[in-house]
């Protein structure tokens, strides 16, 4: 490393390689990455490395980083603690009463993790080196779009057709129902008439007597006038302005002003 790093050079002469290590702490992709780099300096075959030596290297690294007040991320410290534990176990004779994985298992697993990480790095590099689409291999430059032809099946039956026609041709026939009130005595008209007349009905009077002049003959007109006059009398009864009486079913209905 030839980059200037004043804080490091001020310190008490560490080994040149260690110096490089410390300067580039943030350059590691976590403690496993750092361990892998350290292991590579030992051996190419990661399953043959000395885990004890590796643990020592790592711990030395962490100590130096601390001495230089370089802040290490928490997981570097977790790893340091674990490696210190592993180192102490590796230095002691195996304790048959110890629980959990054996020291050998732990060491082997670390070696496996390093080997696996190295393998994935290698795989990534091989993948990226493959002939790639858009760089080495190309798709059709002028793809021919598939034309979508839309076939619409129209849903219309003979009934629809005839109903449409019937609707058109009979439009005039049913207009009168809506707008021509020649033969309709409306509720409003009946109410108006009843209000005027009820004051004169001091005694029971047949409802038929309230029908307007000229509405008693034609059955359709009589029916309309009777219905709305009856409805109007109900409304006035509700308002407390008259009483209604019917002697029996289908008997004539009589009304009188409320006394």
């Amino acid at each position, binding site marked *: 490393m030839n980059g200037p790093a004043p804080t490091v050079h001020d310190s008490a002469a560490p080994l040149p390689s260690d110096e490089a290590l410390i300067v580039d702490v943030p350059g590691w992709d976590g403690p496993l990455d750092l361990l892998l780099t350290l292991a590579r300096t030992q051996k190419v075959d990661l399953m043959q490395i000395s885990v004890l030596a590796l643990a020592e290297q790592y711990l030395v690294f962490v100590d130096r980083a601390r001495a230089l007040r370089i802040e290490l991320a928490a997981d570097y410290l977790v790893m340091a603690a674990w490696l210190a534990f592993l180192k102490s176990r590796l230095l002691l004779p195996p304790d048959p009463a110890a629980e959990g994985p054996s020291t050998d298992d732990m060491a082997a697993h670390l070696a496996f993790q390093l080997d696996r990480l190295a393998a994935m790095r290698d795989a990534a590099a091989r993948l990226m080196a493959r002939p790639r689409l858009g760089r080495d291999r190309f798709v059709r430059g002028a793809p021919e779009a598939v034309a*979508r*032809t839309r076939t*619409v099946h129209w849903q219309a*039956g*003979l009934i629809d057709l005839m*109903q449409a*026609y019937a609707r058109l*041709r009979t439009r005039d026939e049913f207009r009168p129902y809506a707008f021509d009130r020649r033969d309709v005595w409306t*509720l409003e008209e009946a109410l108006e008439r009843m209000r005027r007349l009820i004051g004169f009905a001091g005694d029971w009077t047949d409802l038929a007597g309230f029908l307007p002049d000229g509405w008693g003959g034609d059955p359709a007109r009589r029916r309309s006038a009777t219905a709305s006059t009856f409805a109007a009398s109900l409304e006035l009864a509700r308002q407390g302005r008259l009483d209604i009486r019917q002697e029996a079913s289908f008997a004539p209905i009589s009304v009188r002003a409320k006394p």
Partner: protein
Amino acid sequence: MTGNAPFPPMPEQERMVEALLFAASQPLTLRDMAARMPAGCDPAEALARLRVRYDGRGVELARVGDAWAFRTAADLGFLMQDAVIETRRLSRAATEVLAIVAYHQPVTRTEIEEIRGVALSRGTLDQLIDMGWVRLGRRRPSPGRPVTFVVTEAFLDHFGLASTRDLPGLGELRAAGLLDPRPPAGPRLALAAGGAQADIVAAEEPGCDLFGD
């Protein structure tokens, strides 16, 4: 074509032209190809060989002006079509116009408008013509010689009619109860008081059993 040249052998050049034309988004001229290929190549010769190779295949080398491109063989164009079938209901306006044409043919646009009581929007007749149910008939020998409209064989086919004379007449429609007496929304009270009660009930139930009897 000299065998000992330092530039790629012809089969290799043919592969190059093939790849170039495949990947290009625009047709390429011989100049374009030569500019991309190693010096000393002969794209014209490679192209000529490639054309022979693709002759009669599913894709062919087509000449576009003085450039070249791969194109699907013309007889396979049908593969590039994706047919989508959709079912749609005819609009009320279209149904009415179709009914008028069927009952009154040959009929002019003005007559259709008179019967419907509203102006005909441009698209409605066009749509029916597009669908193949209505076509232009003879011109009416009256002032202005307006075109008339008639229904087509396809129409009769679709509706299962031998001829338009098979369409039931107005009287029959009425007898069958097909008249739709639904009034435009109006004051119900007045109607209820009048004699229209029976009609209202019919309107609410536009019976499917109209043809039952």
